[in-house]
């Protein structure tokens, strides 16, 4: 007999209020009163309160999963509201994990929602995962996907993962000892190889489909019902409205779940830097930068860390393009050494030059600053608010 994917304590009987709330579940032979009590005893951690995490957490809370954790260090931005259905206009600027938990508690006061408003990393993943029975991965970075997958394999946690791009999504589940893990499907991918939703775009409702599938899978695994997506990857194409399914096998050579694994502890992805490191980055406002450039134009080196196609559309005069994935992967390459300068006058980098990192809104340049400061020991500044703030304060003609 195969053991249940999730081991839970013997739950107590439902209250009258719970019987009323979950009446439609109680009518299902696969759930019933004992299954609903089992959901109440379950503890699920959702990694990323983004496009996937929001609908997944909403449905898990509505379904009566007793404890739901949400780990996300980010704050709500206006551009999130097109798909991240836990948030409203009033939440802009607030911590996602905290606002999401407040929303889950309002939806279902019988659920304990726990905010983890920090960045998941190798140093905290064991402690963060420990209280939970199952992990739902809705992260938006490939490095975090591997961190979550490896931690689930190493710590024996079931995992439901999904990912999205434009109109397409993929989902699969992992149960320790019962099939392949994410690394068996995609052994190793460098950060920056794959475009993010910010770069490629995403249909707002797409993560709603995939996040709902994740919630379905999580409930099935918690209740040990149906046929979970073990050894199968489900691919959804919203444009052609197709679901395809592909068989995948555990790879004996897998670095984490294989016969001779080389990964024995969770690892941070290349280019990882903590939120604390990002908080310590010195900033410069657009007005201050404009004055400094007018006063002493040669003393600052402008490094634009956006993608080449974004850089080509518009950039500040004299800026040099070093995309963030390149800094994350290879470390910082000093400007002037084989890099194209927008004014065609690239000169060799001088260690005394102060580097000003620039991106569209400030998020990517902050990471670049933290990495270059730590790894190259350079004096750095981050253009606060990015080129959007520059356009607002200095140059309204900047065509971003």
């Amino acid at each position: 007999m195969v053991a249940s994917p999730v081991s839970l304590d013997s739950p107590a009987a439902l209250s009258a209020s719970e019987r009323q709330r979950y009446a439609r579940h109680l009518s299902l032979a696969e759930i019933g009163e004992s299954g609903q009590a089992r959901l109440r005893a379950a503890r699920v951690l959702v990694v990323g309160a983004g496009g996937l995490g929001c609908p997944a957490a909403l449905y898990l809370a509505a379904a009566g999963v007793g404890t739901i954790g949400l780990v996300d260090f980010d704050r709500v931005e206006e551009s999130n509201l097109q798909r991240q259905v836990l948030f409203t206009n009033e939440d802009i600027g607030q911590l996602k994990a905290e606002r999401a938990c407040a929303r889950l508690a309002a939806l279902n006061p019988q659920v304990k929602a726990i905010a983890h408003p920090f960045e998941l990393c190798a140093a905290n993943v064991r402690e963060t995962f420990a209280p939970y029975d199952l992990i739902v991965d809705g992260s938006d970075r490939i490095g975090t996907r591997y961190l979550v997958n490896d931690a689930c394999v190493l710590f024996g946690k079931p995992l439901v993962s999904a990912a999205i791009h434009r109109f397409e999504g993929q989902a699969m589940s992992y149960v320790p000892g019962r099939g392949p893990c994410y690394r068996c499907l995609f052994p190793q991918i460098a950060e920056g190889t794959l475009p993010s939703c910010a770069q490629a775009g995403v249909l707002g409702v797409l993560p709603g489909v995939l996040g709902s599938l994740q919630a379905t899978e999580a409930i099935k695994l918690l209740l040990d019902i149906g046929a979970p997506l073990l050894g199968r990857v489900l691919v959804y194409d919203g444009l052609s409205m197709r679901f395809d399914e592909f068989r995948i096998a555990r790879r004996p050579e897998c670095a984490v779940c294989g016969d001779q694994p080389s990964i024995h502890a969770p690892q941070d992805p290349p280019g990882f830097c903590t939120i604390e490191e990002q908080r310590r980055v010195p900033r410069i406002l657009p007005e201050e930068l404009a004055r400094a450039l007018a006063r002493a134009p040669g003393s600052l080196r402008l490094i634009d860390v956006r993608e080449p196609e974004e850089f080509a559309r518009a950039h500040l005069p004299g800026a040099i393009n070093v995309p963030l994935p390149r800094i994350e992967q290879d470390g910082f390459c000093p400007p002037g050494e084989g890099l194209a300068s927008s004014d065609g006058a690239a000169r060799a980098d001088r260690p005394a030059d102060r580097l000003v990192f620039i991106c569209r809104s400030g998020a990517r340049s902050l990471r670049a600053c933290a990495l270059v400061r730590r790894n190259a020991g350079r004096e750095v500044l981050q253009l606060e608010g990015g080129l959007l703030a520059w356009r607002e304060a200095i140059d309204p003609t900047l065509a971003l």
Partner: protein
Amino acid sequence: MTEVHIASPLRDYTQGASTVRADGATLAQLLADLDRRYPGIRFRMIDEQQRIRPHIRIFVAAREARDLAQPLAAREPVHLLCALSGG
């Protein structure tokens, strides 16, 4: 002609088409023909050492193909899967 389903991140090469057609008695021949029709797409999937890149998986009739010499049977669709990172 084989029906080839294109992963979302590779559709920049197929002018957005999610399904295209290509010829080949083996997977290698099919990918070569695909590259003739959609220049550049093969290199996104196969590296200089003729290995399938680690963020790409190829399925023939829903079964994973790891050998480019694999023969293709008539009417078996090929799916090109690419890792996605968005969330």
